[in-house]
């Protein structure tokens, strides 16, 4: 039952793709999350409203629907646009790009809330002090806001990362050769779906367990009270 019939390398290849998607979409989500949080806390009405619409819309629709919408819908949209611009060839969006963009976009909305809470936890006076020292806004962000915000945002970030990692399984549905789809194929050929999906489950469990351990250490790093304990 647990003979993989030589498909282990294929599955491991898929795991690498899964990790790539997860890390790239995390990077996108971090950028969008910080922008969204700054938008939500900004004095500018347009920035505030658009950040609010972004988080509300994304968080009220399932990830899978958004993914199908961006992948299949985006495909039609891009081709219509290209056709109108006088371009005749069929343009194909890569499922990899669609997957990364969708997941990054979705988790950007969740991280917006996490970062907003983190930013609010930093005392205003410290930011004012930074400005009074003549620091540029970027320097204030880098030296004062960001390190302290991270400390408050990390537990939320850890949670979001674990959910994100599991969400990547959905990219198999839009045809990306991730871990789950490689298992689909191996299961189809060998007629051993139980074996291969169980293996996929174990690999995800390893990923989430390692993540939890590493992020615990990072939490300690940003929390000076616990550093070195």
């Amino acid at each position, binding site marked *: 039952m647990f003979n993989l019939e030589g498909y282990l390398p294929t599955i491991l290849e898929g795991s690498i793709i899964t990790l790539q998607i997860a890390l790239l979409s995390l990077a996108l989500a971090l950028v969008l999350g910080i922008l969204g949080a700054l938008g939500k806390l900004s004095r500018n009405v347009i920035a505030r409203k658009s950040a609010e619409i972004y988080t509300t819309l994304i968080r009220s629709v399932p990830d899978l*629907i958004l993914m199908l919408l961006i992948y299949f819908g985006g495909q039609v949209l891009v081709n219509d646009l290209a056709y109108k611009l006088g371009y005749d060839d069929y343009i194909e969006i890569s499922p990899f790009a669609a997957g990364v963009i969708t997941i990054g976009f979705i988790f950007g909305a969740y991280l917006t809330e996490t970062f907003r809470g983190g930013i609010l936890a930093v005392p205003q006076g410290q930011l004012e002090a930074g400005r009074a020292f003549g620091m540029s806004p970027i320097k204030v962000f880098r030296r004062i806001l960001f390190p302290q915000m991270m400390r408050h945002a990390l537990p939320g970030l850890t949670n979001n990362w674990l959910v994100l990692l599991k969400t990547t399984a959905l990219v198999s549905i839009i045809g990306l050769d991730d871990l789950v789809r490689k298992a689909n194929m191996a299961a189809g050929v060998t007629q051993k779906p*139980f074996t291969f999906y169980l293996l*996929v489950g174990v690999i995800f469990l390893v990923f989430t367990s390692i993540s939890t351990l590493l992020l615990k250490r990072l939490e300690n790093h940003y929390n000076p009270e616990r550093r070195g304990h």
Partner: protein
Amino acid sequence: MDFTPVIENIDFYWQGLFTTIQLVSAALILGLMLAIPLALMRGSQHAYLRFPAWFYIYIIRGTPLLVQLYIIYYGFGQVESIKASWLWAFFKEAYWCALFAFTLNTAAYTAEILRGAIETTPKGELEAAKAFGMSKNMIYRRILLPSAFRRALPAYSNEVIFLLHGSAVAGVITLVDITGAARIVNARFYNPFEAFIVAALFYMALTFCFIWLFKRLEKRYLSHLQKPAQ
């Protein structure tokens, strides 16, 4: 954009809405029933009770719902002992597989939420109950669980939304839930934009209904914990 094919086939979506509501609410009820003993086991002093609950929750929360669903729907057919038994009558149907997977999944998350709520029970409440001479059973029934349920409400409302959104994967194993309906319409008319936007609207409406419902429940059962209006 042309919504006519979607509107002409809106019946698929109504059917899908019905399936989604049915699956999610059944899984929520069954999951909650499983979650209560799990949460109590998880917080038990005995390792032989605590460990299995911890392990179960750890595995379910560490793996994607889609993979859990695949193991049950596609995988169980490979296991001879399941295929030969009466259980196969259930596990060959996509509907029961989805219900089973969603129930197991939400039970684990809910148990963790409940455990947190039970742990934060104010000591005074328990001491008062003991001083009244209540038995351990009665304390659980009358003090600990009702008070934990209330405090768990906000986190539980998040879990309900997560399950609702997670249930979209049912459309992948041939079920016609809202996602399944959109996939059928898209496959027939090749109108992905319109088909999935309408599905998104259905989910959005459901999400807002759930949020509204939980806001009301929180108002009713948590008002004693809210700050008084200024």
